[in-house]
């Protein structure tokens, strides 16, 4: 295990860190010129890069919060007994199962200014509400990309939370209801403490995935227009493979890695504070699966 980590994770990381201190071209990766912190200084002093960080932060936070909120809502609905629940559970996962490339191409058409269904709906709702364009507008491109991303990832959140809900003791829920607790109180006092560790882990995964999401954004906007959807990974790709500057690309990658590590550290600290040893309501032995 240690050898695996050293070979397949440690070495590439060290290599990337070293690259970030060099000036290295894509076509001549064997010819490094050591430039020290210059690549990082360039990043810090560029206003564009600060915008990249801001866009990345907005994209990540909105994706995670919205996906968890929608996922939680969907999971609670799917947890309740109703006819056709199995089919509904299967249908909800479809966006998550769809390949991001196909999703991106479909949504490019949905958002099209002249042929897109979005504008037709807006036109039908209020004539003058028709918008000229979504993905071509600096103001609308990021919300459009966010909507697409959330639509694709919230089913995963729903499935994870639904699985966590299966572990909540129905006896405790029933006891709380008998004691006169409202639905919201039951959720706050019984359900939420049980599913919180799963939601926290889900938030960690979604954060890291959002930080490194490339395909959907690149295919929809390539980071444009005017940098309005330019996230860290898009910037990394552009510098390394479009401008062919591996050193700059590696520096952007290290910034992204540092942010991901920071989020992970915060997560584990939070979990420690929350108390691993805390007893969480679990299904009683022999309790029937709902």
């Amino acid at each position: 295990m240690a050898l695996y980590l050293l070979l397949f994770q440690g070495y590439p990381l060290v290599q990337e860190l070293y690259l970030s201190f060099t000036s290295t071209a894509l076509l001549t990766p064997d010819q490094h010129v050591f430039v020290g912190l210059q690549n990082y200084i360039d990043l810090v002093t560029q206003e564009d890069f600060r915008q990249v960080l801001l866009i990345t932060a907005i994209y990540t936070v909105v994706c995670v919060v919205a996906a968890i909120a929608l996922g939680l809502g969907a999971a609670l609905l799917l947890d309740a007994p109703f006819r056709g629940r199995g089919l509904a559970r299967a249908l909800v996962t479809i966006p998550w199962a769809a390949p991001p490339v196909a999703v991106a191409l479909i949504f490019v058409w949905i958002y099209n200014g002249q042929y897109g269904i979005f504008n037709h709906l807006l036109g039908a709702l209020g004539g003058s509400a028709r918008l000229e364009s979504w993905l071509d507008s600096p103001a609308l491109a990021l919300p459009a990309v966010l909507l697409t991303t959330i639509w694709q990832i919230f089913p995963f959140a729903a499935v994870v939370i639904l699985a966590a809900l299966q572990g909540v003791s129905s006896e405790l829920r029933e006891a709380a209801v008998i004691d006169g607790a409202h639905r919201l109180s039951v959720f706050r006092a019984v359900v939420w403490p049980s599913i919180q560790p799963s939601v926290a882990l889900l938030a960690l995964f979604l954060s890291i995935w959002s930080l490194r999401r490339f395909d959907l954004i690149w295919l929809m906007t390539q980071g444009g227009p005017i940098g309005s959807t330019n996230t860290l990974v898009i910037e990394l790709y552009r510098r390394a493979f479009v401008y062919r500057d591996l050193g700059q690309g590696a520096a952007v990658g290290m910034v992204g890695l540092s942010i991901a590590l920071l989020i992970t550290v915060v997560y584990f600290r939070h979990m420690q504070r929350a108390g691993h040893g805390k007893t969480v309501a679990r299904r009683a032995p022999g309790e029937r699966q709902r």
Partner: protein
Amino acid sequence: MHSLSIPSRRRILRGSGVAVAAALLAGHRVLRAQDKARLSFAAVTFSEAGRGERLKAWVGKFNQSQTAAEIQPIAIPFGSFAKTVFTQMGGGAGPDLVRMDLIDYYAAVQARRVLALDDLLKAEDYRFTASDRHMIIGGKRYGVPFEISHYVLLYNPALLKGGRPPADFDEFLASAKAATGNGVYGFAYRATMAEGSGFWQDLCSFVYGFGGRWSDAQGRLTLNDPKVIEGVAAYKKVYDAGVIPKGADAATYRRMFWERKLAMEIDNGGVAGIFSQQAPQLSFAAAPAPFPTRAQGMVLTALTINANTKHKAAAQAFVKWALQPGNQKQLQELLGASSVATVVDRSPEDLASKPWLKVYDEQAPHGIPQVVAGLEAKTPEIQQIVLEQVLKVLQGGMAPKKALDDAQRLVLARVLRK
């Protein structure tokens, strides 16, 4: 009831003999094939509808003519071509032969990733086209033109008043407006970062047409030159005129053109060739682009030999084979309205059946590569900044002068570090 007959010993022996002979023959063929040097040839063209298959057949003719070498075509789409091939070449591998865009050619030469061809080709032995001069860098040749494609105005006569093309920019705008309506658009071009490379090509058509250049003869940046500003202002005029299908990508609006839903577009000879082959019933026509000058962008791709090749002699043999007059003629025919490395006169039949070929051929002296002259290797970065600034004009209503002043300043500071 039919009983199964037991084969005689003789028959078994005879059958075994035939099987052994067949196996030996097949083995010999395999060995013969293994003796051949196997080269790979990467080109975007292989992935194109129609032209790709024809180009593979053309390469197949080379394979048939050789006993010691065999080329395998590799199709890589335009969007990921440079990244894919350059990553491989940087890692000491990659295809033996590479057809690359001029921007990539300059980068590859600068990084010494392609072989010099001076020892292989003597200029006096060939009737190279004028565009061949772009293959010479620092007095040395590293490639030969594979395809040279010029830009002209393609139009659907049935959708234009009087069936005539516009003579100047004002007439062009008026024609585009008159043609727009009932699901038909007057003109189309690209104006999104999702199609950055195409956006740049279309912008070059306008800027060059209005007399602008990205740099001067000394290689100094001229992004905010008045002529460049004029070209960008014209781009914006078209954008605001309500004549283009905004957001439609090139594949979509080209299809609209051959379905007679688009009156005009400025496009290269490769596209005209695709129209002609894919939609033979379409009677489209061509005219010079409706700008103050005849200058237009030019797509120039080079045929190069990867410096990492293990089959240098075979790769050189292919380059020499490709330059033979008969093979050049076949290549030009399969490429459509493009030119090739050497001067190939078109047949009278071709010119009669495809009158638009003449317009493309006449555009040749006015073709300018879509790179920043003198700063070729930096073009991708400059392109990104310029396109972002032009988008501010198109989307945000920024004045073209301010946008291009900012572009000049940003490129000098960020790309050229001045």
